[in-house]
Each structure stands twice: as C-alpha cells, then as structure tokens.
C-alpha cells in the first residue's frame, strides 16, 4: 500500500494529520484538473471541497485506488456542473480579472488562453496526465474511455497547444 493510500484510509478513520498529508499531495493537481474543466476558480474550489467532504463522510473503505476514486468523483461533479450550465443556467466563462493579470506572467496567461481553445475532453486528459501524473489506464478508469482513444486525444491536444502557442 502506498503512503497516499495509507494516509487516505487513516483520514477516513479521522486522522487530521493524514488529512493534511492527503490535502498537501492532491489538492493542487485535483484543483488544477477541475479548474481546467470548469474554467472558473470558485466553482473548482467548491468541487474540490465537495470531493473531500464526500470522501470523508462517505468513508469508501473499499476504494481500490483512492487517488483515482477522488478524481472520479471530481470528474462526475464537474460534468454535472457543465451539464447544468448547458441546460439553461448559463454561467459566464471566467476571464482573469486585473489582479490575476498582474499576478500571472504573460506566459501563463497565454497558456491558459490556449487551453481554453481546447475542448473540455482534451483539457481533461492533459490535466490528468500531466498535472496529476496518472497513467492512461488510470485515466481510462476515471473518465470511462478506452486507452487508445485517450492517447489519440492527448496527442492531438498537445499538437494543438503547440500550434496555438507558436
């Protein structure tokens, strides 16, 4: 059992120290993943918060791969949010405000702008593979698509990013 899995199950048993470890390890990549899908920081934070709350309250003691389990919940919640948006409750796509612009470098802004030109599915596979370090097999388990399709999409997305940023 990996250190993360140990901490995960200890967190379910109520250990705050284990929670801190799990939070430290997964919060940033998980947040980045959700943010890349929903494109809104506040929504992304709400989803990450809900993932932790659902996991801690639900106590999934038989989760075989805790990390994938958390990503799967995040994936479902993000998908629900996107579908709610398309069903009428249209939310404006977030644009970086002035403070964000000042804080972030020009490169970063260009990168985010290029990312927004990709489809949600493309951003999703990029983020899960590059930010979260998950294998394509793990990603396949999370979003329910064949490894080959994911590889194809990932490689196409990287090519598009190169084109957008060149």
């Amino acid at each position, binding site marked *: 059992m990996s250190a993360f899995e140990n901490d995960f199950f200890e967190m379910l048993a109520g250990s705050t120290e284990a*929670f801190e470890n799990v939070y430290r390890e997964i919060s940033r990549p998980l*947040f980045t993943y959700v943010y890349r899908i929903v494109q809104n*920081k506040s929504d992304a934070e709400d989803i990450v918060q809900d993932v932790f709350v659902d996991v801690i309250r639900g106590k999934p003691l038989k989760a075989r791969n805790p990390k994938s389990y958390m990503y799967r919940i995040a994936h479902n919640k993000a998908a629900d949010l996107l579908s709610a948006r398309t069903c009428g409750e249209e939310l404006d796509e977030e644009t970086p405000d002035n403070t964000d612009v000042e804080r972030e470098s020009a490169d970063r802004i260009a990168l985010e702008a290029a990312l927004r030109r990709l489809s949600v599915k493309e951003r999703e596979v990029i983020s899960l593979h590059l930010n979260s370090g998950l294998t394509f097999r793990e990603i*396949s388990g999370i979003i329910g698509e064949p490894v*080959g399709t994911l590889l194809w999409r990932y490689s196409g997305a990287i*090519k598009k990013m190169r084109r957008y940023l060149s």
Partner: protein
Amino acid sequence: MRKTKLKKTTILLFAFLALLYVCIAAHADGDEIQSEGYTGGIVFISCERETVTAEYQGVSYKREIAHYTFYVQAETSEELKNALASVLEPDATARFVTSTFTNEEIDFLINEIRNLAACESRVYIDSGENDILLHVELWGKGSEESENVIRTKYGNDPRIELVRTANGPFAGNSDNPGAGGDTGTVYFALVAAFLTAAAVFGGGAELAKKRAALAGGGTEDAAGAKEIKRRLSENTSPSDTLRERIIEKVNYKK
C-alpha cells in the same frame, strides 16, 4: 395556410443549414487526418521521447525511448503485416511479427476481436537503443463467450493482457466513445506486447531516425511537445481558505 407554409420553409432552411454544417465538419476532419500524414492503412499520430527504466527477464534497462503511435486498420495477419511494413522494414516486419506470434495465432486473435462490434486496433511502437517493443491493442466489445474463448487460449500468456470492464466504458464509436453500452455486454481490450532484439531490425536507433523522418521531423516535434508539457504540468493553486473550509465542513478538530 400562410403560417403553415412559413413553418415548412423555416424547417427546410434549418435542415439545409444542418446539412451544410455536417458537410463542413466532415471536410475539416478529413483535412486533419491528411495533415497527420496518412499513408495507406496507417495514420501516424505522434512521436515522443522519454527516458524510462524497464525490466525485462530480470534485467533493468535505463534508456531513452521514442514512442510512436500509429492507428492501424487490419483485419488479417497479412493486412497487419502489410500495414506495419510501411512503417518498419518489410522483411523485418514479417520476421518480427511471426517470430512472436504465428500467422494462425494472429488470425485467431484478430478474428476473435473482429467478431466483436466496434472493433478498433492501434499499434504503439517503442523503439529504444537495444529493443523494439510493439504493443498491439485491439479494442472491442462482445459476449462472455468471446471473452472466455480468448481467456482459455491466452489467459496465462505473458504476451497478452486482457483488460475487462463492463457497462459502457468502451461503448460508442470513435466519434463518440464512452457513449454508453448495453448491460451485460463485455468490453475488453487485448494488448499484445512484442519484444525483440535490435539485430532483427538493424539497429533501434536507426529505426528511430527513420520513423522520425517518416513522421516529418518527429524528434523536433518531440522537443517542442516536451516544452509544452512542462508548461502544462504547472499546477494552479486553490485559495488558502479551501483547506479551512473543508476542515470546517467535516468537523475535524484543529
């Protein structure tokens, strides 16, 4: 009467616009494939390099590997070999495939998968300094019987990995994968890995160069892709209050 006529005209107009959109989309997809380097039965997808540590027959190897991803359409062992021949050396391909599987075995595997609906096959080639590793993935869906046939014959074969899942993940088609599936249908992928010595091919590095040339500057592509990946892998941080909010929600004692 006039209203009905107007309604009909509007419907016809929308139908025409939808048809026009579909035609434009189809045309755009075609362009995309052409620009990716379509050569006969093979579509080149990507070339990436990375350093990996791999273990084969108890010995650890650390080496740079080039990953080539191709989409291959093949329904028989002959078609598979012919398709690979346009990527690898023709003779080498024949020896390569047959040295690992017999024609009968390949035909059996392909037929088993081909009997399934929504069959796809993709070939991944990792070419290192010393080895060539070829993964052939055949994806499909079928009945429990189909799966049992393959498991009985190849269940313990280390060259083959049978990945199984149920109810949806591999359903749909290439345009709409994961679109949902029938309950009780078995979806699985058959991953066959072939490993052979570079001698068969006259040098893995040479092959890698050839593949890069075939791909239209694959090495350069890989360098650019690496930089993009480095930039993309930078995480975005949530606000400092998120942790506190979670602790508060689940009533953890601070």
